[in-house]
């Protein structure tokens, strides 16, 4: 039975893909299969092999063997060379990967091409540069040579979400491999395809077998098995708060594996009336909620506008929102594709319903678009109150709540009144205000006069229940290393 399949995109582009589990540099069958759906059409794209506990165990064993079989002590320049080679291959096969991403996730092809592909390549290149720059310290201690080494942790598990499949894969792999860990990635069963193509490139690049393993499967089966595995020394998860808790619990109950979590958000976007250019503010704010159909953990889903410019802002924001075409992600002028699945679609529509029932005004949108697929209009709620569910709970869709404010201390308090703390933004031309508000907001990423600027060289992660640990930048290295302190007693010093 061949695991290879060919998928044709609406624009005629064909991609050949191995649908097996990528373990030890080979594609193998799983315990079952999962159908992955094209969210723009609701139709099945392909059937992929799925992992359960048995296959997770195989993958972990492969990673373990590879770690102790040479990767742990590998030459850093060789690791860098392989990572750079993989980045080159991702670019070479960028069209295939971008098409798979858009088919499987629904994000516009223009985004996959111009955002995700370079994002993956940049991530790999950035961390390739760190391979030979992992420094400990020498710490002056009387009569001793006292120093630290930053060692890899071992076999790492990565459980990644469906909203940015390739990018999330790169975010986990790059720092783990650079610091000479080996890894087992469980992709989302909703978006397994692009990772399978990257798996083939990993083999082509020349990574030794077992260093990077990529499997898919359901959370309760494959994800659970990975979180509980006694030979996995660290788990990195991006996804929902609920699953994050389960993973932390699983780690606590098994081998206390190190845990980093990147969870949800309900990020506030605060706009002052002293902004220089309202059009720019509207541009960023709209990007902040409607990019990726609102399926972004740090989406600016609560907008607070100072009363002096509230009316003008809402008018311009509505106009820009309406101008974004919602439709076929393969068309060049499409701004917003479908939601990822029927489940998510229903969930978001339910929140829109809740918002109306709570007494908020559905100022724009609120409806399904078209008959096929899971498309939702860009939606605006106004006349919102802080304790409404649509102001407190993460909707993860193209739904924004816009609120008017007068008092500055009050708006900061409202912005911080959340169990989340992933990101926040402030728009102002006043330098004092910019710094003071940035300091006051309790979130891991603060944007001033912009939104969603996320790069490979700067840390990203949440305060409070938005997560634990930071990805990207030098800070990410701490997630994948453990510190050993060595003290050599120098007897009989001269």
């Amino acid at each position, binding site marked *: 039975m061949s695991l290879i399949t060919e998928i044709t995109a609406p624009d005629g582009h064909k991609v050949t893909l191995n649908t097996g589990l990528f373990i030890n540099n080979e594609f193998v069958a799983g315990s079952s299969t999962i159908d992955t759906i094209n969210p723009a059409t609701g139709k099945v794209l392909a059937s992929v092999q799925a992992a359960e506990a048995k296959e997770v165990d195989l993958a972990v064993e492969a990673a373990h063997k590879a770690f102790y079989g040479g990767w742990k002590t590998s030459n850093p*320049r060789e690791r860098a060379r392989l990572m750079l080679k993989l980045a080159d291959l991702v670019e070479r096969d960028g069209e295939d990967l971008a098409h798979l991403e858009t088919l499987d996730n629904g994000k516009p092809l223009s985004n996959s091409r111009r955002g995700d592909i370079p994002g993956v390549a940049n991530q790999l290149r950035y961390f390739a540069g760190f391979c030979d720059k992992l420094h400990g310290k020498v710490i002056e201690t009387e009569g001793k040579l006292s120093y630290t080494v930053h060692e890899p942790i071992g076999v790492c598990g990565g459980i990644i979400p469906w909203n940015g499949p390739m990018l999330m894969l790169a975010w986990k792999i790059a720092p783990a491999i650079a610091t000479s860990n080996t890894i087992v990635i469980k992709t989302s069963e909703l978006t397994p395809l692009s990772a399978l193509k990257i798996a083939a490139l990993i083999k082509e690049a020349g990574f030794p077998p077992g260093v990077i393993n990529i499997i898919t499967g359901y959370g309760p089966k494959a994800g659970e098995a990975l979180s509980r595995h006694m030979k996995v020394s660290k788990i990195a998860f991006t996804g929902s708060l609920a699953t994050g808790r389960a993973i932390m619990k699983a780690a606590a109950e098994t081998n206390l594996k190190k845990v980093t979590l990147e969870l949800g958000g309900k990020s506030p976007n605060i706009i002052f009336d002293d902004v220089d250019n309202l059009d720019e503010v509207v541009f960023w704010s709209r990007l902040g909620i409607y990019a990726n159909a609102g399926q972004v953990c740090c989406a600016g889903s609560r907008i607070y506008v100072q009363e002096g410019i509230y009316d003008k802002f809402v008018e311009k924001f509505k106009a820009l929102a309406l101008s974004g075409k919602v439709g076929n992600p393969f068309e060049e002028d499409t701004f917003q594709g479908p939601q990822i699945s029927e489940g998510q679609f229903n969930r978001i529509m339910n929140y829109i319903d809740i918002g109306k029932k709570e007494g908020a005004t559905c100022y724009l949108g609120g409806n399904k678009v078209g008959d096929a697929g899971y498309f939702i209009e860009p939606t605006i709620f106004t006349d919102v109150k802080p304790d409404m569910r649509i102001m407190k709970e993460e909707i993860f869709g193209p739904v924004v709540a816009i609120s008017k404010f007068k008092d500055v201390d009050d708006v900061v308090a409202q912005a911080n009144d959340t169990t989340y703390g992933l990101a926040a933004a402030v728009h102002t031309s006043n330098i004092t205000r910019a710094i003071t508000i940035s300091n006051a907001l309790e979130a891991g990423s603060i944007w001033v006069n912009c939104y969603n600027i996320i790069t490979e060289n700067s840390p990203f992660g949440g305060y409070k229940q938005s997560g634990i640990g930071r990805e990207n930048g030098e800070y990410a290295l701490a997630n994948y290393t453990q510190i050993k302190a060595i003290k050599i007693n*120098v007897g009989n010093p001269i």
Partner: protein
Amino acid sequence: MVQPDLQTVRLSNGKEITVHTQLFINNEFVPGHGPLIETINPATEEVICSVHSADKQDVDAAVNAAATCFKDTWRKVAPAEKARLIHKLADLMERDRDELATLDALDNGKAFTVARDVDITDSIACYRYFAGWADKIHGKTIDTTFDKLCYTRHEALGVVGAVIPWNYPTMMAAWKFAPALAAGNCIVMKTSEITPLPAYKFAALVKEAGFPAGVVNIITGYGHTTGSFLGSHPLVSKMAFTGSTATGRKIMESSSSSNLKKLQLELGGKSAQIVCADADLDKAAEWSCGGIFNNHGQSCNAGSRILVHESVHDQFLELFIKHTKAMIKIGDPFDEDTFQGPQISKGQFEKILNYIEIGKKEGAIVSYGGKRWGNKGYYIEPTVFTNCHNQMRVMREEIFGPVVVIAKFKTIEEAIDIANDSDYGLAGGVYTTDLDTAITVTNEVKTGTMWVNCFDVFDQSTPFGGYKQSGFGKELGKYALQEYTQVKVVKILRSSKI
């Protein structure tokens, strides 16, 4: 008639290659206004060809090109893009590895296999290492009082001047270019007029890689003219120099009388290799042999003094000479078996032979070698002096040739004192199996590098640079970035009212 840029040159095996001979300024090869300088093949004593040299107006042109490029272009290029360009340059060097090695071997006299497998290979690794730093140069935010935002920026210097020596033409260029570029600077480099050819080939690759015009500028000329013009130029923010201590002083003086440009000096050495009684003598002999005779003794960090515990001296000497005989095959640089080629020039050749005479007059004994090798080319036999003491000139002065001086010691303390009894402090080594000895000696000897049970081992990621009169500043490793950046602190006060 102006000598055209491209010249055809014949190798000893009959092959012909084309070399650039004009100055590389603003991404173009242009004639120089200084005299044409002949570059000699030290293996044959014959002229390879002539190259253009830079006079004051050429140095001005190069510096102005760099300054304009920095202001208008290079400082606005994203760090990841800088990294990409440096990686591309490394790719091209890999592609043209043999050609680059050929030029190093032809102009310098080092064995082609060594040029290819050490010099060019390590140069490529150096560019890749520093490319990785380009987007990782971080300032800090520093908590002071609640009403201030304070942070540091690690900014590029602007135009950096570099003067490099002849002993590792391509690699010395890499050690300067790589961190300078990664940190965002534009550069004017004066190569040694003795080995000008390799860098001009490199210049062609810089242009091919796509660097904007003016980022990299390469000229050659005499130290006392071209070097001097560069060292005193008001638009050059920093001089990085590798060479003799005497010239290092001149550069320091010219900085003090011009614009106080920042300095980095990597000068001479008289590094001591200490062989303890408990050392693995055979391994120590093998490592220490390479430690002095690598690159024909023409390394600033050459382990040119060997201090051996008296109880193992004779045994060690026998092993050392055995390894010298086995390792050092002298011959034509393009011969596959050659380990040691000629010394760089007639001047150096005569200087080294003169030191051998001085050593004999001082009472040192020639236990091996001591003469010219062959009758064509500047070849000198690997030479071993024994019966030395640390007040001899041959124990104190840098010879920069394949001449090692060996002395005995009774106690470790004595060895440390002898090692430290030098104006230099570039490197050193200790051979021992004892943990305490290794740590104590490496703590106590005052040098920038200490090797234990090895010598002359380099990595791109570890810093290199001397104590005392061997210079100041570090090359390689993260430490090198400090040499090519300047720190600005920004302190923003916010009023207490919003």
